[in-house]
């Protein structure tokens, strides 16, 4: 007992941080499971069918189908992992882990609420850009190591696509850091609450009009669409392209390797892009009623609830797009990334510089 107590006092910070990291990771993994359920359910409703509605939690009579993702996980974990004969065995097995690690590590700098962020580092935005650019290695390795032409084609498509959209994404974030004047994610959220005190009612409050989405709207659109392309989601899912290249980079994977290569990183990255879009453009954990209601009321207080609501709204868009848009043609994906998005972001960065120079909008408070 004494030993435990002394360990606790000595390594308190380390233990607390480890517990926090495990909690965030568990939350992400459970969100991924629920996200797969939500995807099948929402797309089912959009296509006028039911979606999963059979498997219940311990046979309880409500929430039918909610246990479907957990049943899927058990099924995938129990299946045999098949390694193709001429595959590069080591790379084939390590590729899922390479895909998974950056997808989970990026969550370290996400500010969940005014008080809670795992690592409040100054170069947070750069850290996110660096780690999201690593995610492509899992896909490339999986495609190459499988020694299958469909897998290789999928990996090639994915690599070209991710490199193309990373540039547009980076430029969109340049606009964000110009508005915030900082690379720290908590500072970026706080900077979005600069009010228009000079303009009087109804502008006196911080409210949702000072969030970046209003002044950086083109950048938000570019960021979110680039995020969809970076996560290889419909309508940009040519890396899978089941109608042309069977299932692309993960065609040879089965069982647990399939789950960790495909399902976990893809959905974790989706949730991450939705979270970052909320943090960068929608005010993160800030309340839209801030400044209009009494500051002590629950609705005006900044809290994780607001971040969660914004994330859910963005995630719904992911599912909505998948259900409504047909897959892009490959050359048009490249055209959109290089010839449409990059010029849009460059123009808007120039417009933003002009706004900051003439002290328009959120820069008015700089005097």
């Amino acid at each position: 007992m004494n030993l435990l107590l002394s360990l606790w006092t000595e390594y308190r910070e380390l233990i607390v941080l480890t517990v926090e990291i495990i909690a965030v990771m568990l939350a992400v993994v459970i969100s991924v499971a629920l996200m797969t359920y939500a995807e099948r359910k929402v797309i089912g409703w959009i296509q006028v069918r039911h979606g999963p509605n059979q498997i219940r939690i311990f046979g309880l009579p409500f929430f039918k189908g909610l246990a479907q993702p957990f049943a899927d996980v058990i099924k995938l974990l129990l299946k045999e992992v098949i390694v193709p004969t001429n595959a590069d065995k080591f790379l084939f097995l390590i590729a899922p882990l390479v895909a998974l690690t950056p997808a989970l590590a990026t969550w370290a700098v996400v500010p969940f609420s005014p008080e809670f962020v795992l690592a409040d580092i100054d170069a947070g935005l750069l850290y996110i850009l660096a780690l999201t650019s690593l995610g492509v290695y899992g896909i490339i390795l999986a495609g190459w190591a499988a020694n299958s032409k469909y897998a290789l084609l999928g990996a090639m498509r994915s690599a070209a696509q991710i490199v193309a959209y990373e540039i547009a994404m980076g430029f969109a974030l340049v606009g964000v850091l110009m508005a915030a004047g900082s690379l720290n994610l908590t500072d970026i959220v706080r900077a979005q609450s600069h009010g228009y005190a000079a303009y009087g009612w109804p502008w006196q409050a911080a409210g949702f009009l000072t969030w970046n989405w209003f002044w950086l709207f083109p950048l938000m659109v570019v960021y979110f669409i680039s995020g969809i392309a970076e996560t290889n989601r419909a309508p940009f899912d040519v890396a899978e392209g089941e109608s042309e290249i069977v299932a692309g980079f993960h065609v040879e994977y089965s069982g647990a390797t399939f789950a960790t290569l495909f399902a976990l990183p893809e959905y974790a990255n989706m949730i991450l892009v939705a979270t970052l879009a909320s943090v960068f453009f929608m005010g993160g954990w800030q309340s839209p009623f801030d400044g209009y209601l009494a500051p002590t009321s629950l609705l005006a207080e900044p809290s994780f609830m607001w971040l969660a609501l914004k994330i859910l709204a963005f995630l719904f868009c992911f599912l909505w797009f998948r259900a409504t848009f047909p897959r892009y043609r490959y050359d048009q994906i490249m055209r959109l990334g290089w010839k449409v998005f990059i010029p849009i972001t460059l123009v808007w960065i120039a417009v933003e510089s002009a706004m900051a120079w003439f002290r328009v909008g959120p820069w008015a408070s700089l005097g």
Partner: protein
Amino acid sequence: MFVTLLFYAFATVLVGAALGVVLSRNPVHAALFLVLAFFTSAALWLLLEAEFLGIVLVLVYVGAVMVLFLFVVMMLDVNVAQLREGLTRHAPLGALVAGIMIVEIVYVVWVRELGGTLGPMPAASVASVSNTKALGAVLYTDYALPFQLAAVVLLVAIVAAIVLTMRKRPGYRQQDIAAQVAVRREDRVRIVKVDPAGRP
């Protein structure tokens, strides 16, 4: 203590990865070892509290340059036997280059014993000063012009690379995307009234 341990761990991985780049037979494995080497050196920079440079190293070299490297290497069908043909012929030159580099490294490491003096160790950075902010302040004030000049040089290189690949080939056909996007329903679809009973 902990930092020293980390340093030796990273340094071992870095040297191992660098050896792997040179020694592995498979070019894809070599490229992946290079990725590991970049990543580990970024970790070493983080240990030196140069977090901006470390993260940028990962972002630029690991995230972009090496992806394209891998992309190209995977498409190549490298014949290892053909590559090894000239090995004995080029070995003396390679040995000479390696020898010069070893001498240089040894000279730098043992510079004090050879009569030179090392500069003073830089003071540990203050926690309140942001690495990123300090770099930005220097880059955009004292070195604003050289910085922009470097950017222009890079831009010229990009434009040159694109221009080099643009050549007119006979029989080359191109899509007019604007025309494709501007197509309306009336251009493509013709509604024909057909009497189901088959009367003319």
